[in-house]
């Protein structure tokens, strides 16, 4: 907007201006989705809590040797959520666990969506044998039960956070690939693509400058939804004992609780908080994803 006075704006400034306008329009419509706003507020809170966790709880919160309390204490003023079988502060552990759960969820979703977008855009842009092979591979992964494949992958690889991220990432991308490919095919029929080709735009130019910006909104909505299932998947893998045993995560806490006999002893305070944390964060991401989806594609009617 700064360069518009008097002269004709440069194409770049024009593009930037238009982009800013569309972001503003998106935000205006997003604000109308009440559930999406709640989700966003919860997520902001959780993200801040996870980022600044070292300020509230020391990094020695997961240390078994110098635990502050006695084993399996019920909630008290000193330990608001009680203690675990080693006498560690459960509130501290849940706060600390958010770092791993959120990080793994985010990374796995980014990996998944990145693979899906790459394959979707290229399979939509290059037709012929490349697209056929890519879509066959996509279908191949699509028929595998996601969770079972992720579990099998995590079983044969070493126990680490990388394993968890990879196991979730490489098993959840096919839906994104299908979606992005369908959108790419729709975008490529538009006249401005033909114009770009006529002006000598290469494959890279068309994919990165014309197709990608148009599939980005879809990718954004998809990422938000996938983070939610990635967080659940991470908790599941950790609960099955396939996560990194050296870090604290919400799923891992539940596994600890089960192994410590919290279920049969009726120690509800050990079981409730990690599960609520998982559910709240997963729900918040789902709400945001649905809000983004219904802003971008009102016809979908997911949250009408």
């Amino acid at each position, binding site marked *: 907007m700064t360069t518009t006075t008097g002269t004709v704006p440069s194409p770049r400034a024009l593009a930037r201006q238009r982009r800013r306008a569309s972001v503003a329009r998106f935000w205006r419509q997003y604000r109308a989705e009440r*559930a999406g706003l709640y989700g966003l507020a919860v997520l902001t809170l959780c993200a801040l809590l996870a980022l600044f966790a070292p300020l509230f709880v020391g990094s020695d919160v997961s240390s078994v040797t110098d635990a502050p309390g006695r084993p399996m204490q019920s909630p008290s003023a000193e330990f608001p959520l009680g203690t675990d079988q080693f006498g560690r502060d459960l509130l501290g552990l849940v706060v600390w666990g958010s770092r791993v759960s959120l990080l793994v969820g985010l990374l796995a979703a980014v990996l998944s969506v990145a693979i899906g977008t790459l394959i979707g855009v290229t399979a939509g842009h290059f037709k012929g044998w490349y697209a056929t092979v890519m879509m066959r591979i996509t*279908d*191949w992964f699509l*028929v*595998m*039960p*996601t*969770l*079972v*494949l992720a*579990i*099998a*992958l995590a*079983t*044969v*690889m070493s126990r680490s956070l990388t394993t968890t991220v990879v196991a979730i990432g490489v098993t*959840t991308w096919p*839906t994104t690939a*299908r*979606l992005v490919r*369908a*959108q790419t*095919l*729709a975008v490529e029929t538009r006249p401005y693509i033909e114009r770009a080709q006529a002006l000598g735009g290469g494959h890279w130019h068309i994919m990165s400058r014309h197709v990608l910006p148009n599939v980005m909104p879809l990718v954004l909505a*998809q990422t938000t939804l*996938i983070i*939610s*299932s990635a967080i*659940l998947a991470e*908790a*599941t893998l950790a*609960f*099955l004992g*396939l996560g990194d045993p050296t870090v604290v995560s919400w*799923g891992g806490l*539940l596994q600890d*609780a*089960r192994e410590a006999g919290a*279920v*049969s002893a*009726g*120690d*509800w305070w050990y*079981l409730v908080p*990690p*599960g609520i944390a*998982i*559910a*709240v964060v*997963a*729900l918040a991401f*789902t709400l945001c*994803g*649905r809000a983004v*989806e219904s802003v971008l594609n009102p016809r*979908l*009617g*997911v*949250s*009408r």
Partner: protein
Amino acid sequence: MTADATPALVEDKQRTAAGPRVRKGSAYPRYLAGKLAGAAVSLLAVLVTSFFLFRLIPGDPVKTMTGGRQVSAEQLAAYREELGLGLPLWRQFTDYCGKALTGDFGTSYQFRAPVVDKITEALPNTLLLTGTAFVLYTALGIFLGTRSAWRHGRLGDRFHTGLALTLYSIPSFWLGLLLITVLSVGIGPLPGMFPTGGMESGDEEGFAHVLDVAHHLVLPVVTLVAVEYGQTLLVTRSALLDEMGSDYLTTARAKGLRDDLVRRRHAVPNALLPTVTLIFINLGRTVAGVILVETVFSWPGLGGLFYQALSVPDLPLVQGLFFEFATAVILMNTLADLVYPLLDPRVAR
């Protein structure tokens, strides 16, 4: 996993919007052949995946199989023999396929019994659990989804949609643990009302045995229904909402039909089409997704077996179960493909 179902539906919509495929002649046999061929390819894909997943990724498969345990040189040699590691890769693969298709997945390490025996032993228990849960959550999802859509925007709709989304975000194993703590073990004044796990308590015969199994079935089924019905509800609801503005509904109302009849006879049958696909996919998915619920409730089914196999890890058993779960999903997807055109003839055309 909301992300799984909704995009698939979205894509279907976009595909139909892009223009129907034009084909002539009687479409169904050709459609059938196409879908069956697709299923065969998928099955092959599963075979290839299970072969490579458990043999090539870890490096030395024998080392992975023994997992750092103490093994004598003879045992190592025997494992190598059993896996056919001396043979060229393609021979290993064809041998593996031949064995897998006849149901031979080798011998489980921890049970010292053929994998296929363990699977057939556990399968009926899993079918009992998933079958009961499946019928209940599908009925509940369709019923509540229809009502929500018909009265959309009202308090009841907002409540049910919210509850479904919340339950959908809850890890099934956590809900199971909570139910055990509250209803089986008992908290405070509340006595434990249900067994904490397993499928039967012992030596009852006849009808008493049936009642006992049903008693054990309650909590696992409740858990499965709670985490699964939401998706069916949401899909039914949005499919019905799509139909709500249609002219034929206005016509039906103009004829003077009661609101109830308009809903049951006109709107719901059309709206159920996308739900049918989901139902079949769910059926396949539930068999795989039951792993956690069975683990938490010590239910003696395939999922519980999978967990036992993982913790060793007992690779022949993991491999056999992986094949089993994947096959179940493929089978159900194919069934959905075959039934769908009978309900909606436009699909096969």
